[in-house]
């Protein structure tokens, strides 16, 4: 603590009245309070609800393990596997799709990269729903794609809308920026001199990629992958709108339990399992990174 006080560069302000808590701690309080009542407490409520009698609407009903028993006995594991599968495929596809763009943003585009970044940021702010629906209009029978093909060639194709691959397509589309920006951040952390030196020592393009760029950019890539995976596991609109409910992911099961089935405790138990999967993954990955280095490179 003494070292911290020494490094704090505002002695005149800090010394004032010899406060008991550091300035950093005091500044963090509003956010911490919000997280306590808006994040921690709701999650605890969910955990509490998962342990009461099925179909009850109060936290103070009979405690019970029936919800977890139902989940094990029925086929909910399928929904879990679908969700994890979709999210994993999305992450892999996005890594491949985004790498060249991130490389361009970090290395090649120079003064154009601000404009390109803006173009990639903008869709983030258009309601996700609207964009997904745009794809329905694009792919639907008589829509932009099939109608266009028919007008040009006279061939009538069947629409690929409402099939499982469309769900992955939608997820890749929606979560692209969440992979792209952390990846760009990661790639711009690779010092140019290091790649230059590798080339000068006779490394091929492939070797530089495999042995220099990829390992050094890894923090950014892993953060991007984690973010897209978590968002992908939580995705709900893509499967409902683009997938036409051909596959039921776990988020959809949860929503059904809360709405049509009116079985909050069951939905809560499913949410708890999903939270466990996501939580373990996120904590394991975040623990390993120095956030100051990733965010504060400028």
């Amino acid at each position, binding site marked *: 603590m003494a070292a911290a006080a020494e490094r704090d560069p505002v002695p005149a302000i800090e010394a004032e009245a010899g406060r008991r808590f550091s300035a950093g701690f005091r500044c963090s309080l509003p956010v911490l309070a919000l997280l306590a009542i808006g994040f921690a407490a709701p999650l605890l409520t969910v955990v509490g609800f998962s342990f009461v009698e099925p179909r009850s609407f109060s936290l103070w009903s009979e405690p019970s393990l029936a919800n977890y028993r139902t989940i094990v006995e029925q086929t909910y594991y399928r929904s879990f596997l679908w969700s994890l599968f979709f999210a994993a495929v999305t992450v892999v596809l996005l890594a491949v799709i985004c790498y060249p763009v991130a490389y361009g943003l970090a290395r090649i585009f120079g003064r154009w990269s601000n404009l390109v970044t*803006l173009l990639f940021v903008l869709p983030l702010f258009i309601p996700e729903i609207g964009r997904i629906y745009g794809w329905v209009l694009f792919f639907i029978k008589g829509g932009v794609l099939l109608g266009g093909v028919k007008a040009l060639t006279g061939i009538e194709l069947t629409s690929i809308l409402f099939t499982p691959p469309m769900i992955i397509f939608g997820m890749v589309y929606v979560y692209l920026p969440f992979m792209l920006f952390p990846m760009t951040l990661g790639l711009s952390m690779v010092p140019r001199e290091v790649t230059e030196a590798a080339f000068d020592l006779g490394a091929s393009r492939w070797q530089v990629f495999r042995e220099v760029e990829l390992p050094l950019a890894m923090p950014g890539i892993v953060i991007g992958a984690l973010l897209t995976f978590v968002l992908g596991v939580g995705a709900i609109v893509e499967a409902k709108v683009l997938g036409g409910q051909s596959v039921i992911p776990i988020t959809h099961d949860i929503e059904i339990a809360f709405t049509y089935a009116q079985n909050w405790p069951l939905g809560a138990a499913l949410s708890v399992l999903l939270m466990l999967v996501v939580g373990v993954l996120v904590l394991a990955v975040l623990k390993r990174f120095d956030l100051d280095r990733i965010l504060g490179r400028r």
Partner: protein
Amino acid sequence: MGAQRGRWVTPLIAAWTAAICLFLYMPVVAAALASLSQSRYFTFPVVRWSTTWWGKTFASIQIRELIETSFTIALAVTAISVALAFFGALAFARYRWRGRSLYQRLVLLPIFFPQSVLGLALLLWFNALGLPLSWQTAVFAHLVWIVPVATLVIAIQVYSFDPALEEAAADLGASRWQVLKEVTLPVLWPGIFSGALFSFLLSWGNFPLSLFTTGADSTVPEYLYAKMIAGYTPGVPVLGTLSTLGAAVLLLGGYGLITVIRRARGA
């Protein structure tokens, strides 16, 4: 030598980036086309163009109410989240303190969390507290997710902030409040502005949190979703396109403003 090596790489990457960009905007274009077509059900190529549906949308009282609700929520979220995130960002990046590393990870948790599950959790929590759902509860729900994002956005600016400036001002006799008003705020201003822009737009477009927490009040994304599941009218693409245009104007206008002010300051 460097140029020789990458001769074929640069155009290839530029072409790929352009293709991805096109891909990002394709559904926006499709929605715009649908909104300008006269027929009740969208067919392509468009047979008859018209702005009928735009007129009908503007005239609708229900849609005006939706936009008002969304706008009110987004404004409230922006004001509160910027205030909280400003101090949150100082704690994140400016000060060295015990527990900072733990705090940084805590702030990230809501971002790395499925939003639909967070929405449900908040629904159960409001229910347990006996709070009736309305646009106010939705504001709170949005804050849980948006404050951490705004904190990160502002923190990136704070990292590049030189604390010696504050020290100098204090040495010259400025009070704590003067230091904040005359030094810290002006220097961090671009980051705060970005944080506000992000807060507004993310709240405006949010669906998973609103779905579970608005109660009887409805936002634009919720309406779009309901209409998509049942009861399509060309009013849906009109409203979607309208949202898009609004976001574009706000974002481009905002960053245009920042650029102009930076140039003026630099000159």
